[in-house]
C-alpha cells in the first residue's frame, strides 16, 4: 500500500482537499481524473467530510486523537493504481511536534512509511517573518518623517539602549513564521522517512481563489511560494536530492462559502467548483497532485 502523507499546520485545508478528492474520484465527474476502483471497507470518515463539502459547509477539521487512516482504491486510464493511504492527521499534531519536539510512535511510523508528501499552506493563515525594521521602513517610505540629523542620532541611541518595553510579548515557538515551522517539520521527516530519495512532494497552496489573480498561469502557485514563503521554497529547491517538488494552487471549495455561495451552487456538476492550477492540471482535477505523488507523471519537478 502506498502512503501519501499530508503535512500542514492547523486550518490549511487538508481535510477539505481529501473531501473533494474523495468526491471527484468516486463520482468520476472530472474527465481524466483518478477514479475510485472500489469503496474502501470503512468509508465513514470520508463520507462524513464529503457530505459537508457537498452541502457547501465548512468541512469538519481533524482534531488530535480522532485521526484515522483513510484509504482509497484508485485507478487511472491505464488500470489499477492500488490502495493509497491518506493519513488524515491534524494540524495541531504537526504544530505540537514543532513546539514540543516529540511525536507519538504511531505518528513516527506513519511518517517513516510515507512514500510521498502533500505539503499544505494557506495564503490567509501564514505567519509572516515581518521585522520591525521592515515595517518602519515601509511606513517611512509611505509617510516620510523629516527629522534633523541629531534627532535621528538620538533616536538610534535610544533604540540601542532599549530592552525592556511595555506591551512586548514573550517568545513562543508558536509565533515563529509558518515557513520556518514547515521547514523544520520537513527536516523531521527527512530523518525518519525511509522512502527512496528523492521523495515526491506536492505543495498545495490552498484557498487559491484568494490569490490566483495576482499569480496567473501554470507557474502561479510556484511563483506565490517563491515570493511569499521564500525560506520554504529555498529549502525545497536546495534539497533536490531529497525532494522532487511540484506546486499547485488549489481551491477545493472553489471560493468563499458565504460570499460566493450562489455562484458555487450554480455549477451543474459539484466538482466543477474546484479550482486547480499547476503543472499538467486538467480543469477541476484535484487528483493531479496525487497523481504526481504516486509517480504517475514524469520526473520533472520544480
Amino acid at each position, binding site marked *: 500500500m502506498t502512503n501519501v502523507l499530508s503535512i500542514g499546520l492547523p486550518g490549511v485545508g487538508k481535510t477539505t482537499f481529501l473531501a473533494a478528492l474523495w468526491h471527484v474520484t468516486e463520482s468520476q465527474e472530472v474527465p481524466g481524473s483518478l477514479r475510485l476502483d472500489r469503496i474502501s471497507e470503512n468509508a465513514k470518515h470520508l463520507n462524513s467530510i464529503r457530505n459537508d463539502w457537498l452541502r457547501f459547509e465548512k468541512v469538519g477539521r481533524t482534531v*488530535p*486523537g480522532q*485521526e484515522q487512516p483513510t484509504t482509497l482504491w484508485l485507478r487511472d486510464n491505464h488500470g489499477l493504481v492500488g490502495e493509497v493511504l491518506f493519513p488524515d*492527521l491534524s494540524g*495541531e*499534531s504537526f504544530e*505540537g*511536534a514543532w513546539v*514540543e*519536539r*516529540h*511525536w*507519538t*510512535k*504511531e*505518528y*513516527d511510523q506513519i511518517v517513516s512509511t510515507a512514500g510521498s508528501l502533500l505539503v499544505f499552506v494557506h495564503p490567509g493563515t501564514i*505567519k509572516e*517573518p*515581518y*521585522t*520591525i*525594521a521592515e*515595517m*518602519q*521602513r515601509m511606513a*517611512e517610505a509611505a509617510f516620510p518623517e523629516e527629522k534633523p*540629523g541629531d534627532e*535621528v*542620532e538620538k*533616536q*538610534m*541611541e535610544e*533604540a*540601542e539602549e*532599549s*530592552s525592556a*518595553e511595555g*506591551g*512586548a*510579548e514573550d*517568545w513562543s*515557538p508558536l*509565533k*515563529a*513564521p509558518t515557513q*520556518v515551522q514547515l*521547514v*523544520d517539520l520537513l*527536516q*523531521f521527516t*527527512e*530523518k525518519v522517512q525511509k522512502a527512496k530519495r528523492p521523495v515526491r512532494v506536492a505543495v498545495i497552496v490552498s484557498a487559491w481563489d484568494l490569490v490566483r489573480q495576482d499569480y496567473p498561469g501554470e507557474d502561479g502557485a510556484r511563483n506565490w511560494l517563491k515570493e511569499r514563503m*521564500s*525560506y520554504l521554497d*529555498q*529549502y525545497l529547491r*536546495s*534539497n*533536490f536530492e531529497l525532494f522532487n517538488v511540484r506546486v499547485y494552487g488549489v481551491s477545493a471549495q472553489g471560493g468563499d462559502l458565504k460570499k460566493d455561495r450562489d455562484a458555487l451552487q450554480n455549477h451543474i456538476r459539484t466538482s466543477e467548483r474546484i479550482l486547480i492550477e499547476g503543472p499538467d492540471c486538467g480543469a477541476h482535477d484535484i487528483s493531479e497532485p496525487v497523481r504526481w505523488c504516486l509517480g504517475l507523471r514524469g520526473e520533472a519537478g520544480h
Partner: protein
Amino acid sequence: MSTSPPTEPLNPQSGAEATATVGEVFVNLPLGKPLGELDASDVLRATDAPVVVLAGAPKSGKTTLLASLHDGFQRTPFAGYLAAGSRTVMGFEERCFDSRTASGRKTPVTQRTRVQEGIVFYHMKVRKQDLLSPIKQLLLADMSGEHYEGALDSATALRALTVIPRADHFVHLVDGGRLASKDWSGHTQANALMLMRRCFEEKMFDSDAKVDILLTKWDLVLARVGEEKAGELLRSQQEAFRGFEKKLGRLRMMPIASRPHYKSALQPAYGLSGLLQSWMEETPRKSTPQARQLPLTTLQIPFDSFALREAPHLFERNSDD
C-alpha cells in the same frame, strides 16, 4: 493517536541533536536549539563545515549578526545562496523574535547571550543559487560578552576558550557606535586591541589564522559623525590593527550594520553578504579532529584490556589514574 503532553519530562538531553525514544508512546525529535560543543563536534566530524567564532564586548552586536543572517533568508535568497536547512532553527528563531513584529515591540532588540549558556553553536546549511555545487554547512560560535571581558582580565579565562584556536574565522566585533562616541572611543579601542594582543601572547592564533575585525553599528557611526569622519575612523582603526597583520594568515577590517535603523540609508544586513560568501567559499583551515574519548568502563572482554594498553589516549582517565 494523541500528542497530549506526557507527565514525565521529555527531551531531557542537553544537545539539540538528541533523538532518543522516551517511554513507550513518544519519540523525541531534535530540539533545534543552539548546539553544545559535543553536538558541534559531531557536525564537524561529519562535514567540512567552517567554524566562525564571534567575539566581542557585551552589546557589540554578535547576536544581532547571527539573527540577521537567519533573517536574510526569510524573504529572498541571501548572498547568492539558498537556505538549505539548519539544526538550530528554534535557536535562530528565538534570537530573531524580539526584532519581529510578532513580538509586539516598537523597537527591534536582540536578547543577549547569557554567560550561563557558555559557548553555543548555530548551524546553517546553504547551497549556491545555481544549484551546481553541494550543500555547505556553517557553524557560528556565539559567546557571551562576559567571556570577552573575562579573557581581557585573565589569561586563564582566554586559554579556556579553546574554540578560538580551532576557528576557521575569528570574527572580532568592535562596537562602531562606541568608537564614534567621545566618551567611549578610547575604552573601546583599547579593549579591542588588548584582546588581540592577549590572543597572540597566549598563542591562540596560528600563522594561518583568519581574523575579521567588524566595526558594527555603522549606521550609528554615520549618524554620529557623518560620512567623511566615518571614513577617517575606519582608516584610523585599520592603522591601529595593522601591527597584527603580519602574524596572521589574513586580517580584514570592515564596517557592518546587521540591522540598520530605519532612518539609515544602509540596507539591512549591510556588509554581511560578502562575509558569508567568504566564510562559505574559503577552504577551512586544516585542523586535527579531536576524537571523543571513550568511557573507561569495566573491562569485560580481552580486547578491552588490549585496547587500553595499546591506545590509552582513546580512553577517559582521571588525573590521578
